[in-house]
């Protein structure tokens, strides 16, 4: 067994970077802070790769099972005699895989940002925030228990709030960061209740104990507590899933993700492609054995929310014209894939688990590639809108090629990475939930279509284009990450993933079936072909198609009016039904009564004028009314 003493350095380096750059960077070494941050995160990335090497290759599986290791584990506090809360680092296949993904993508984003954020007045602050975010995310994936994961979960939320709202002089960025924070916090509270219930039921917060306790046959036989017709464990799982759905932008909690694109583009690549948004998937995967207990029902919620979000987001993505928003909806759609892949799995058929994690892995590379590429495009044309783009392939050759690779990967064209992971997901769905499979198939056609619509409209479409203020494609610090990520978008698919990551932590093998792949690949190619026909050159085919489907298009363009619905509920319903009456009661009844009493006791009031002491009598009246009310209730209970 190898030694993992160095493991705590992986999260410590970025937090040290945050403290150092945050406190001193701004004043003493603003220009160097970017490279210092990159160096620290680079070291973390190397250590993570080394951990993966040790864990998967050197130690390997003992008797065919990868062990769950706790290189760091300390009791943080003893809550009751039977329930203690620990802080620790858990190493198992999925957390090691996430370590690599998070540190690696973060490293790429750091390198890219040294170029992208150059000349920004709060350059050092930006890197301090990036470091804080990376630290929180690393803490999240390494957590050994629910309580700890919640703390880091919230830290991730806070640091992403800082990053999304980085341009705080832009009102839309401020609004977006606030929205992201509030929506995810709203979901997190359900998560918190879920944790409380799980803790009380399982008598532990540790993942290993929760899984052991809640899936043991004795527990399943004896436990019968229900609430509103469902078992309490199901409730807990659904509540935890709501927390995950908030962070992972699943319908209907997705509304913050598109707006969050107001943040700097490298932030979108880091947070909204590879790390924070997959936290929900990771959480469900962590508790997968509990979700997978037959009859809990929670797993079906995961499956159907997942597939619905996948399709829903893909439809919206087809109509958006802001390129970052297209990518945002595409992320939501791909995470929907990962979610339903988990949802269609069970203890007997756990291929979906592997496929979901595999997709998480490959998606991290090609989606951050696409975001970073979009950043260069935006840099070149100074706009997010497709209308201002077209024919850029001459100006941005490297971006063009790498972006194309990213699009091919996400569209599932072999032999790019997305093909392999998506095949796994579709196959898993096909074996257990054919209904989900067919929807997913349609969605993958849509995916290919909207991605290539994006691609053609950016790089082709217009024949002649003159860019004003064009200063070249960008520094090598920005192009280099693109090349690396593009390489990985091709290579990652060939990793024998099932050999390393399965639901039971055994060494599995990858399913490949050429006959099965024909349908998804053909549908993907069809999507690409349609996009090519409509958008490669300037023509009116697309407009005609839009005109034909005006109603559907309009609805999808307005994101199915979900934002409006939310505004309606929060502003109109809550404000009118709760806020207004509360204000009204306060103004009319409370104050009115006060005024009335003041009038009645005018004599006394006059003597101590100006002290509004009329009110005190009012207080007394409320006080005694309260006493009488309580007495009545008490006597009622007693009887």
């Amino acid at each position, binding site marked *: 067994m190898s030694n993992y003493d160095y493991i705590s350095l992986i999260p410590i380096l970025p937090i040290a970077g945050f403290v150092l750059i945050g406190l001193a960077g701004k004043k003493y070494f603003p220009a160097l802070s970017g490279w210092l941050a990159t160096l620290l995160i680079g070291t973390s990335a190397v250590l993570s790769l080394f951990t993966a090497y040790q864990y998967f290759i050197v130690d390997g599986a003992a008797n065919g099972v990868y062990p769950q290791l706790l290189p760091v584990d300390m009791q943080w506090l003893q809550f009751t005699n039977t329930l203690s809360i620990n802080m620790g680092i858990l190493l198992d296949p999925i957390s090691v895989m996430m370590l690599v993904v998070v540190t690696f993508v973060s490293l790429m984003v750091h390198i890219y940002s040294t170029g992208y954020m150059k000349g920004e007045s709060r350059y050092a602050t930006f890197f301090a925030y990036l470091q804080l975010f990376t630290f929180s995310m690393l803490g999240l994936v390494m957590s050994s228990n629910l309580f700890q994961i919640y703390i880091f979960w919230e830290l991730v939320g806070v640091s992403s709030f800082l990053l999304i709202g980085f341009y705080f002089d832009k009102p839309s960025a401020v609004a977006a960061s606030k929205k992201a924070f509030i929506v995810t916090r709203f979901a997190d509270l359900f998560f918190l209740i879920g944790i409380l219930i799980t803790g009380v039921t399982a008598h532990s917060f540790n993942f290993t104990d929760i899984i052991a306790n809640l899936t043991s046959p004795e527990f399943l036989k004896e436990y019968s507590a229900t609430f509103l017709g469902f078992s309490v464990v199901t409730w807990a799982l659904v509540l935890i899933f709501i927390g995950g759905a908030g962070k992972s932008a699943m319908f209907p909690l997705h509304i913050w993700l598109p707006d969050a694109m107001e943040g700097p583009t490298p932030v979108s690549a880091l947070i909204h492609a590879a790390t924070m948004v997959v936290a929900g998937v990771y959480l469900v995967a962590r508790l997968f054995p509990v979700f997978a207990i037959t009859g809990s029902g929670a797993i079906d919620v995961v499956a159907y929310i997942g597939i619905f979000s996948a399709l829903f987001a893909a439809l919206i993505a087809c109509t958006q014209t802001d390129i970052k928003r297209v990518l945002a909806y595409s992320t939501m759609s791909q995470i929907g894939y990962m979610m339903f892949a988990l949802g269609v799995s069970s203890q007997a058929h756990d291929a979906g688990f592997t496929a979901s994690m595999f997709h998480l892995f490959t998606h991290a590379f090609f989606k951050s590639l696409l975001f970073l590429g979009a950043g260069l495009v935006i840099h070149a044309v100074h706009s997010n809108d497709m209308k201002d783009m077209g024919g850029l392939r001459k100006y941005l050759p490297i971006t063009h090629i790498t972006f194309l690779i990213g699009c091919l990967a996400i569209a599932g064209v072999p032999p790019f990475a997305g093909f392999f992971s998506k095949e796994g997901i579709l196959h898993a769905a096909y074996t257990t939930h054919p209904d989900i499979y067919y929807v997913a198939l349609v969605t993958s056609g849509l995916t290919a279509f909207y991605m290539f619509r994006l691609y053609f409209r950016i790089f082709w479409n217009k024949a002649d284009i003159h860019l004003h203020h064009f200063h070249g494609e960008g520094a090598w610090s920005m192009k280099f990450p693109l090349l690396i990520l593009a390489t990985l978008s091709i290579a990652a698919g060939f990793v024998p993933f099932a050999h390393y990551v399965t639901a039971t932590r055994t060494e599995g093998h990858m399913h490949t079936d050429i006959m099965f792949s024909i349908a998804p690949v053909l549908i993907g190619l069809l999507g690409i072909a349609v996009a090519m026909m409509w958008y490669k050159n300037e023509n009116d085919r697309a407009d005609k198609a839009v005109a034909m489907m005006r109603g559907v298009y309009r609805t999808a363009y307005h994101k199915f009016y979900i934002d409006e619905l939310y505004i309606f509920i929060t502003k109109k319903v809550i404000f009118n039904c709760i806020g207004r009456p509360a204000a009204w009661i306060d103004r009319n009844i409370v104050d009115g009564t006060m005024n009335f009493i003041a009038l009645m006791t005018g004599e006394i009031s006059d003597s101590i004028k100006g002290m509004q002491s009329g009110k005190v009598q009012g207080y007394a009246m409320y006080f005694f009314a309260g*006493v009488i009310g309580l007495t009545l209730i008490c006597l009622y209970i*007693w009887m």
Partner: protein
Amino acid sequence: MPDNFFSVMQFELVATVIMFIVLLLRLGKKRITGDSLLLVINGLLTINLLVGFFCNAHGSLFGDMFFSNPLICFQKSILNLGLLIISLQSWPWLKNHHHTAEFYIILLASLIGMFFMISAQNMFMVYLSLELATIPLAALANFDLQLRRSGEAAMKYIISSAFSSGVLLFGISLVYGAIGSLNFEVISIGMSANPLMIFGFVLIFAGFAFKLSAAPFHLWTADVYEGAPVAVTSYLSVISKGAIVFVFITILYRLFQNIFDTWYQILFLIAVLTMVIGNLFAMRQQNLKRFLAFSSIAQVGFILIGIGGNSSEGLTASVYFVLIYIFSNLAAFGVISLVSTLTGKESISDYKGFYKTNPLLAWVLTLALFSLAGIPPTAGFFGKFFLLMAGAAQDNYPLVIIAALNMIVSLYYYLRVVKAMFMEENADPIQKLKTGVSPALALIICVAGLLLTGLIGGAYEYISSIV
């Protein structure tokens, strides 16, 4: 005199001695004023706090009227700590005040009242010490002598207190009439669910609910908090409330344990009502002091949930929460009092652009508000988590859900202040403030407390071990 007299009554005696020293300083021929007087007093209060740490006496005095054990010592130390922080924070305000010494004499009198109240083992003693704790506070509320609203606050406080004391006293007499004793031990054995005792219980409950400013007995809070000087407001909202929580738990857990089923229902109702009303009204406030008043009402609702656990975890979580609440609330009040003393600005819109001019203070206030809202990794999260955990043990899921929803609502209004400070423009922002040594020290203590109390598990475990 019993052997253990000095060790059991250590807190009361030390505080009394300090009170007399301050009195002598005031009466002395050569009057010390201003900074030097404050230096002496704050030094004494520091000694008071440190000496308290060495107390772990266990024993009772005066025919079982007065009792002390390590938990009670710890609770008194929490109050001492809070008093020291408040005293450090109010340095700039008191420096130019003509009656600094009197302020401290009255303040210490009230503190001694609270000490006796926490140690009381007899309803008579509870009542007496409660009055000793309350009446000086009315005088303190009036300490901005030239301000009319300060006098108004004092007037309102004393009159409202009189109601609640009357009701409390009535309740105590009913219980006495039914059982024939005021001793805790005797009452707790004789307690049973009959109308007379339940009525007595309701009256006692209402009396304490008033002091806790739980809804619907909270109406006085906002007016008094707004009108009183900030130091007094902090004292009322943190120390006075903390002491009452401690006594309230003792009374519910010991005296009325036999009628748990009855008081749990009431507590549940009041907790929900308090949270909802506190939050709804906090949302509408523009004045930061009023805002904190209502938010502190909502916080009381959370404490009541933890108390509802009716277990040693409930007690531990409540004491732990009070400790954390002292740090968070005093950090918030500290910044607000500084701004209010130096510029007179108290409204949320005045805080627009505060971050640009005073980044450090803005961060402190943000941390404090995050802690009040219960966002990890600030201590406030841990406090709330344990309260909810203790409350959830009763399997009352609706209560936990309501509490969680209230946490969302509260997040909204706490964030409103943060947003104003960090993200909004202001043509006329609060200028760069000179914090001064002593308020800065107080803020450092608070920030350290609200970052470390949660992350270091030992704090909770220590309380758990002495409960």
